């Protein structure tokens, strides 16, 4: 309702052809405004030229490390030589089609999930299937596909797989936690609140150390667990607390009358939740979940702290190669661009989705 009132006059206030006027008023509308513009231009004049010189003009585009050291600018030749390592890290080169295929599958799954057209029951089957396929591609199968130890995994597929697996497995747990927190059973409520507040109170680094140092000891004697799997379990448990709070916001947005009406029809608690409350609640929080997922993608970079070669750690390791020592800035800028593409694209998508869902609800 307010969206219409706000959107319509704004569109009418800016008739086509007046763009130049808007620009002039926005830059030199008043004395103060003009001064601000000049000061900003001066600031840009200090920052942009040296940056541009380093990035483009003085940069070395091809050649060896020696050519780069001779020049003053960025060493893009280093990126050309090491991009395979940054994206795939120590994965055996002759088997590299497998992580590449895993990435393609994962990105395809994400793209399909992003389109409301594909929001069907099949998607819930596709997720575990694709994740299992990716894991199989990465790890191999003794006897059939050459096995590759998880110590050799790295780069973009590790970041994508850990992110997707953790988020997908945290979501159901988060829904249960959110339901428990809003339940009228005090015991479950207490457990849920304690769990959520505990997890949200401690830093993710502590969780990762827990996965590295304590989890191996907490397993029954003689059992051991893969490092990446341990990290996945702890991160999923950690993220569930954050997602639970988002879901709780959605549950609160569903009017009480909906549940009362469903109860009058004779439905039990789980049927009410499954058929009436959760579909409405989750629909409201999808944009929030997307934003949360972007934050989580950036947070997977913390895996570097415990020595897993995710995208960021692979970039760091690429510049430690003796023949290309020290081109850290270039490596970081490239992975920053990859993270940014996901993050910016995701937040634009979230805004689009919010508008679309809003429109649907109004119709």
């Amino acid at each position, binding site marked *: 309702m307010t969206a219409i009132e706000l959107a319509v006059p704004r569109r009418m206030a800016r008739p086509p052809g007046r763009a130049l006027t808007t620009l002039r008023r926005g830059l030199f509308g008043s004395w103060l405004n003009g001064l601000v513009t000049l000061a900003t231009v001066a600031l840009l004049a200090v920052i942009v030229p040296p940056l541009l010189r380093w990035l483009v003009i003085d940069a070395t585009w091809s050649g060896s490390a020696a050519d780069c050291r001779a020049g003053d600018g960025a060493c893009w030749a280093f990126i050309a030589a090491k991009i395979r390592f940054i994206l795939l890290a120590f994965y055996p080169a002759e088997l590299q089609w497998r992580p590449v295929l895993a990435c393609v599958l994962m990105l395809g799954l994400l793209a399909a999930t992003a389109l409301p057209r594909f929001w069907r029951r099949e998607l819930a089957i596709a997720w575990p299937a694709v994740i299992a396929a990716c894991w199989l591609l990465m790890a191999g199968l003794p006897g059939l596909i050459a096995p590759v130890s998880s110590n050799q995994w790295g780069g973009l597929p590790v970041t994508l797989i850990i992110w997707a697996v953790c988020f997908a497995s945290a979501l159901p747990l988060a829904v249960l936690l959110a339901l428990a927190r809003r339940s009228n*059973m005090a*015991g479950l409520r207490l457990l849920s609140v304690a769990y959520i507040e505990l997890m949200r*109170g401690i830093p993710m680094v502590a969780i990762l150390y827990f996965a590295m140092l304590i989890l*191996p000891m907490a397993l029954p004697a003689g059992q051991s667990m893969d490092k990446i799997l341990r990290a996945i379990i702890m991160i999923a448990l950690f993220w569930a607390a954050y997602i639970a709070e988002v879901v709780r916001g959605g549950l609160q947005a569903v009017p009480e009358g909906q549940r*009362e009406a469903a109860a009058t029809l004779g439905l039990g*608690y789980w049927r009410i939740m499954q058929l009436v409350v959760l579909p409405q609640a989750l629909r409201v929080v999808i944009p929030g979940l997307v934003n949360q997922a972007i934050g989580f993608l950036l947070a997977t970079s*913390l895996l570097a702290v415990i020595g897993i070669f995710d995208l*960021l750690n692979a970039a760091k390791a690429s510049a430690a190669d003796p023949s290309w020592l020290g081109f850290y800035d270039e490596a970081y800028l490239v992975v*920053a661009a990859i993270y940014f593409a996901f993050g910016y694209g995701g937040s634009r998508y979230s805004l689009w989705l919010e508008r679309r869902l809003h429109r649907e609800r109004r119709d």
Partner: protein
Amino acid sequence: MTDDSKTVPAFAKAGPLRDFAAWWGPRPLAQVAVFLAVIALFYMLASNTVASMARIGISPGFGFLDRAANFEIGESPIAFGAGDTYARAILAGLLNTFKVAALGCVLATVLGVALGVARLSGNLLLSGLVRWYVEIVRNTPLLLQLFLWVALAHALPGPRQALVLFDAVFLTNRGVFVPRPVVDGLPAWGMATVVLVLGAWIVHLWSGRRRATNTPRRVLVSGVATFIALAAILLLAGARVAVEVPALAGFNIRGGASLTPEFAALLAGLTVKFSAAISEVVRAGILSVRAGQWEAGRALGLRDGQIMWRVVLPQALRVITPLTTSNYLDLIKDSSLAVAIGYPDLVSIVNTTANTTGQAFEALLILILVYLAINLGVSALMNLYNRRIALRGEAPA
């Protein structure tokens, strides 16, 4: 949830038992069973852990805190050397965390408010610039930014070719040197009077808040008066007050306060990352106040500054405060990334402790408890503040 009557055992008599049953809710036995299952799970994990520790010859307990720690700490607010106890090492780490988190919160708030205002300035160029700053900072990982800041800090020239800003701030690869205020020769009575005057001013501000009489002019006047009083005391006591500016002496830089490259990088990274978040919060808070409030203020003949200060900001703060609180909490938690760039914060020291003593479980337990305590403390403080501003706005006139 609505079928209470079916499952709650009916306690005929009113009393604490019935109150408890009503609070505990339906299916009481099933809930107890869930509790027991959780306890059993934890018991299983804990007994496995204890058994594993016994296998590698470590006895559980906090006795290791009194043992001597044989490592050095790069920097610490309290004196620490190899041979001091683990307890002291952890305290040093905690103080380091406090140091960077407190400074980070202050700087991020200042920069964030400035950026938020710049974004709303109405100047197309400036607000566009701020928008892209926020997008870039928000959509790249903090750890990556920290790596870049560290690389930058180490790529700075040596002390002799230091980058100098305003002849006072020296940027070198050995750290950042900034001016520092020094007070010399202040006797005890002078110190006591200074504390007294400052205390009086704070009480004055506090009571002004209570009665809502703190206008910018009054705050300014009382502040200037306090400043003059302080200057007079220092003059009478014969104290020397100076700002010690760092300067190049030989091959190094002397004087001023020095920040290690790691500390400077961590502080810069946290400030930049969270200034972007806070600027968005400030912007959202100010935009959340409806345009009608501005129009009503103008109709009453208030100037724009007055409308901002008396009408818009008090309402915007109600949106801003809870969101900033969670930003502060995130900043404190994210200061733990120090461990990845070699700043000896709490997590870094606890990790070293766990590795050198093998008491990983106890060390992590300390870490978790400390972070929970910090979290609860900050939340409680900010809730207190939040309740004050909420009440002030909502109380009927």
